[in-house]
């Protein structure tokens, strides 16, 4: 070994020593501020869902912080791109961040499954606004999040039958055509709907799956027309649902168009156009924010997000509710992960309207299974028709 390489080795040894001695103590949790995380797709192809949901969390935090509480809430974004691969990287980081006491999310079922091991290991409580896959709360399933995962949204098993019941309501001899959008949400809901259709021996005349972001639905429309269906159930999101409804209408089909909470949005009318949207039916475990929010909540929404209205943004109510679950616990003085966990698991909370009670079962579902409401577009406005 010559002189130079000895020098190199010496330097390396010195650096290693320095590194060893300057180990940092982990940052102390701030005393006056606690941190909540919103986890969902904030960039990339699914960014829309995450960006929309984040508005609800922002609003809830804004309303709370405006009351000048003793413990303020800081809200941070964790972008998992709705992708399990990314969530597997993001979740351990959030889990390791001692300041974080609760996760609003994960928004997507796949990302939830990838995140569970990290959050379970660090006892971090989650309240998801939109992960609807049935198995997430099924303690017998291998991919459940018990006892840290909760959701304020009804799972697919509840909404599937509801959307079928509501769509064929008042239709003589219904012939149903089911279309999903190939997302975990869409296929899950479609499966639940088809199972109910089979159970009740309703006449299903066909099915199709059209991948999200498809622009041309004319082939599907042709198939629907050929099948003589008079009810179309679309399980997906409103930008695609609106395009499908428009295409159906433009091609002279006039039956009942129905969809789940993904399609329920004021922007659906804008996308589909008034003529095509008229009479469309939706179901949802929660009322759209722009319909249900009080004036104060609307004002807080505008203040927090800089947007005039929540129309065009999905799941804002659900995220608002999920965030409020944590905030209610923080109001009670629970500012540790353990405190939050027991509080969320046992406490009673209120939804956006201040009346509807949210309480979680042991598995993390809303007690009584988040009532599924029926909606319909009447004269260009989405009207609420009560539980179905």
């Amino acid at each position, binding site marked *: 070994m010559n002189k130079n390489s000895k020098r190199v080795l010496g330097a390396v040894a010195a650096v290693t020593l320095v590194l060893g001695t300057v180990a940092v103590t982990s940052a102390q949790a701030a005393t006056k501020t606690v941190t909540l995380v919103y986890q969902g797709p904030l*960039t990339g192809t699914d960014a829309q869902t995450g960006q929309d949901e984040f508005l609800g969390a922002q609003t809830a935090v804004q309303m709370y912080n405006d009351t000048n509480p003793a413990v303020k809430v800081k809200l941070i974004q964790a972008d998992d791109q709705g992708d399990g691969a990314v969530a597997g990287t993001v979740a351990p980081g959030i889990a390791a961040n001692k300041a974080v006491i609760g996760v609003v999310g994960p928004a997507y079922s796949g990302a939830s499954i990838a995140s569970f091991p990290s959050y379970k290991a660090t006892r971090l409580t989650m309240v998801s606004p939109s992960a609807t896959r049935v198995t997430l709360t099924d303690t017998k399933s291998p991919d459940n999040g018990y006892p840290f995962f909760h959701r304020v949204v009804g799972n697919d098993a509840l909404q599937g039958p509801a959307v079928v019941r509501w769509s064929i309501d008042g239709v003589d001899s219904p012939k149903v055509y089911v279309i999903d959008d190939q997302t975990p949400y869409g296929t899950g809901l479609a499966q639940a709907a088809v199972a109910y259709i089979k159970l009740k021996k309703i006449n299903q005349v066909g099915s199709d799956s059209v991948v999200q*972001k498809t622009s041309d639905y004319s*082939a599907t429309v042709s198939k629907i027309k050929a099948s003589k269906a008079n009810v179309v159930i679309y399980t997906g999101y409103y930008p695609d649902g609106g*395009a499908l409804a428009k295409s159906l209408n433009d091609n002279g089909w006039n039956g009942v168009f129905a969809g789940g909470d993904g399609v329920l949005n004021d922007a659906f009318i804008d996308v589909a156009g*008034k003529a095509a949207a008229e009479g469309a039916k939706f179901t949802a475990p929660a009322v759209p924010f722009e319909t249900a929010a009080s004036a104060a909540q609307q004002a807080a929404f505008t203040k927090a997000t800089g947007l005039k209205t929540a129309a065009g943004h999905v799941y804002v109510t659900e995220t608002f509710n999920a965030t409020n679950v944590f905030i209610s616990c923080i109001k009670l003085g629970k500012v540790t992960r353990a405190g939050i966990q027991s509080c969320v698991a046992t406490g009673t909370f209120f939804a956006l309207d201040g009346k509807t009670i949210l309480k979680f079962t042991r598995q993390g579902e809303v007690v009584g299974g988040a009532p599924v409401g029926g909606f319909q577009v009447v004269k260009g406005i989405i009207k609420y028709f009560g539980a179905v």
Partner: protein
Amino acid sequence: MNFSVVVSQFWPLLINGLALGFIYVLISLGYTMVYGVLRLINFANSEIFMVGTFATVIVSRNFFGFNQDTDPLSGFKLFFAMGACLVASMLVSGVTAVIVELVAYRRLRAKGTNRLASLISAIGVSIILQEGVRILTHSVPMSNPRLLRKFSVVTFGDVGIRVDTLLVIVFAAVLFFSVDRFVNKTLLGKAIRAVSMSEETSKLMGINLNRVISATFLIGGSMTGAAAFLYETVYENTKYNVGFSIGLAAFTAAVLGGIGNLRGAFYGGLSLGLLEQFAAAILGTQWKAVTVFLVLVMVLLFKPNGLFGEAVQQTRV
């Protein structure tokens, strides 16, 4: 498998497939012309299409003040409004394409480096455009007001052929043949063809390379813009990520027909539109993309340069 659909819905499937195909034809010009001249996959073309759709929507909504409650127009007003939207789309897309060439390709070309560098640069521009528009629009889709009343022109039994689909077919065909004539008959067109045959030789012949390339991007981009306008006329919606799938389809169409070849883009686009339509009807929409790619592989196996492609010079990564 469901062949009864094809029997009862043959005409709508055919006409809608043709209309979609013609939109592909125009977009694939943006790929194929650039490829012909630069031997480069113009990856940003899908975003150029996206920008074009927003141009139409913004002109009709913000400039004219139309919205979803506006009644469809007629007569001169209709002609004028749609003309303005078309011009705006073509202009915005064309200019964006030229800017993309300046920003992403020109420096690289001047250095004479590998084509993959340009490809990655194009992907970068694509991400910038898409994410930029996403942030500007808050990720919300925008809908285009209905300017043209969608009545049926011809009816076969209970199915009608709508005026907007016919408009797409007629207008796109006219545009395509004008571009075809332009490239084959004018001096600039001749220059474009010369450059696509040999860059070196055409430089020696005194052709201003940069000008010709800019012109190619302008034409390809504005055709993509015209497609964006036609797309808005039929589908009336757009979103920051609208370009991805349609751009991919148009690129596939260009390859199917033989990339770098104008007529190839024409036949490739039409076959792809029809193929997608009938595959979706017969096999189910979820297998549409698989069918398209399998057909593409089969075609390339027997005709390695696409359906109508001349032997493209050997290309190297």
